[in-house]
């Protein structure tokens, strides 16, 4: 029987600096083709530093590798800056449920993200783009602290010609602009006034810092969204990824098994603090 705690070995194929403390790694498994559903996460082991959960940003189907975007936040994640191309790391997973793509079909999709939260919905944006005709309007509302804290700056979402072509509207805001910033300034909820957001036939996906997710969900409820129209990609410190270690519980929900993608309605009323 397999020891479920032992990670599979994988190699770093690419490292890209997104911001001063955020990097995107391209990872290739040594012994298998990697696949994951949009919204799932993996446990990354940096041998000698520790293990941490992180969402799969994109699966590069053609060569069986995947990308994940990691911010330096603690003892284990700080080890990312010591990685080089060719370094060996460990991967367990993917774990978790992923986004309910079937339920999202035919609906307008609004994606609201903050900071590195954009990485957790990147695989979703990818999936929506592949079957663009199956979904209604698609809007991305993203906020970061400063323009320098924006990740994926060279991706298509920052290029209006590209987003128009793909039938997507992308709006950005920062808390503190720099001299070159020409976009919005303020909280991501203020972007709700810059574009039309209607509850009608829509689903909102939120991922970002707890405080931001809290205010965005409340604002959406005020706008008439139902609790089953709000989908959250939750963060917790999942240590096992298999529903046992107890670190990721929100009420009786375990974020690693029942999530990380949860409807607001599933956790809104627990006595536990959600955000």
């Amino acid at each position, binding site marked *: 029987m397999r*020891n479920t705690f*032992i990670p599979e070995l994988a190699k770093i194929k690419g490292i890209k600096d997104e911001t001063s403390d955020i990097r995107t790694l391209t990872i290739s498994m040594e012994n298998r083709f990697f696949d994951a559903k949009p919204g799932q996460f993996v446990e990354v082991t940096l*041998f000698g530093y520790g293990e941490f959960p992180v969402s799969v940003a994109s699966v590069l189907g053609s060569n069986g590798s995947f990308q994940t975007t990691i911010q330096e936040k603690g003892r284990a994640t700080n080890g990312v800056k010591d990685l080089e191309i060719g370094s060996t790391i460990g991967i367990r997973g993917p774990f978790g449920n992923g986004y309910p793509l079937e339920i999202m079909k035919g609906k307008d999709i609004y994606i609201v993200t903050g900071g590195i939260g954009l990485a957790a919905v990147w695989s979703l944006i990818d999936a929506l783009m592949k079957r663009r005709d199956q979904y209604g309007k698609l809007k991305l509302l993203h906020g970061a602290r400063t323009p320098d804290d924006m990740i994926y700056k060279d991706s298509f979402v920052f290029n209006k010609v590209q987003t128009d072509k793909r039938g997507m509207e992308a709006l950005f805001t920062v808390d503190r602009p720099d001299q070159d910033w020409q976009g919005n300034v303020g909280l991501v909820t203020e972007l709700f006034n810059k574009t039309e957001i209607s509850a009608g036939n829509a689903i909102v996906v939120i991922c970002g810092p707890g405080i931001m997710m809290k205010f965005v969900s409340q604002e959406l409820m005020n706008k008439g969204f139902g609790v089953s129209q709000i989908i959250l990609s939750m963060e917790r*410190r999942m240590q096992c990824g298999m*529903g046992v*270690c*107890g670190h990721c*519980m929100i009420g009786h929900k375990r974020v690693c098994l029942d999530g990380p993608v949860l409807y607001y309605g599933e956790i809104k009323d627990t*006595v536990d603090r959600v955000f």
Partner: protein
Amino acid sequence: MIAMEKLIDKRDLEKFFNDLKEEYEIIGPTLKGGGTAQYSYTTFAPINKFEELMLDYTTTMVSPKNIFFPNNQVLYKFEKDSDGNITVEDVGDEWREKRVFFGMHPCDISALLRIDKVLLEEDFDDKRYRNKRENCIIIGITCNEPHQTCFCSTSGAGPDIEIGYDLLFTDIGEYYFVRAGTDIGEKLLSSDYFKKASRKDKEKRDNQIEMVNNALPEKLDIEKIAQNISDCDLDTLLSEFTNQCFTCGACNMVCPTCHCFSVVERVNPERTKGSRNLTWDSCHYEKFATMAGNVNVRPDVKDRFRHRVLDKFYYDATRYGTAFCVGCGRCRDFCPGHMSIRDAAKKIQEG
């Protein structure tokens, strides 16, 4: 199937023990596990001589969980060579032969059945735990009298149980009344010192169980507790308890059903060689619900105490279909603040 039921004269117990010892390693309640200057506690440990077996014990300090799911397990070792290649080695003790647990109380047996639900789940199969569970023979013993903090009847974890054991002993005076729960148990009863049990012996057993049952405190209403959890102001209800909590985690360490753990890296200064270890964790510790960037979703003592009470009586009950508190009373016994999870649950029940 009607369970096989027999009698054994207490004077013959040593024979039975020695016959078992011929074939198996025996683990049971014994005093050699230590204690303090004032107290001596029994603990589950390997037993070599019959005299070491303390069947007339109240509750051990640490439950047999300690043996099935030990603290500080090495999950695997790794080594990085000068070229950066990593080798990973699966380590861990494996039981190749069956071992006998002699003298487990119903609450601890019930606790194991609950941990089975967690560690032998579809999504997660702990191979070390499975190996031990598949290689244990459980000989239980019902209690002669409840300890002052016991309340096993609340969640059906005692004083009598139907499943989880190979043999279940009950002290009925000069004899033990023995009930088999499995084929293995029936085979163990084949020796000639096990005598036929009469209806009268059975009555004695029933009376003994009934006596313990009557001495236990009133059962809690777990359904009512679950219902009140969403309707009541828990923080106010539980405030008298949370003021006494030192967040030491003793309750979690002695709890027979607590299974939360952390996985930690133990590594040399060069970070080239090390192991990943599973250590028991406590939901009372400040860092338990802390995540990246030092965000803590249960920052206050009250949040964490509430979490433990709710986890035992509501969260795990919702998830696994049974309350995870078996009423062994250990958490009350070893709490420096003398907090009782039963009193806390009762408070919620009363609303």
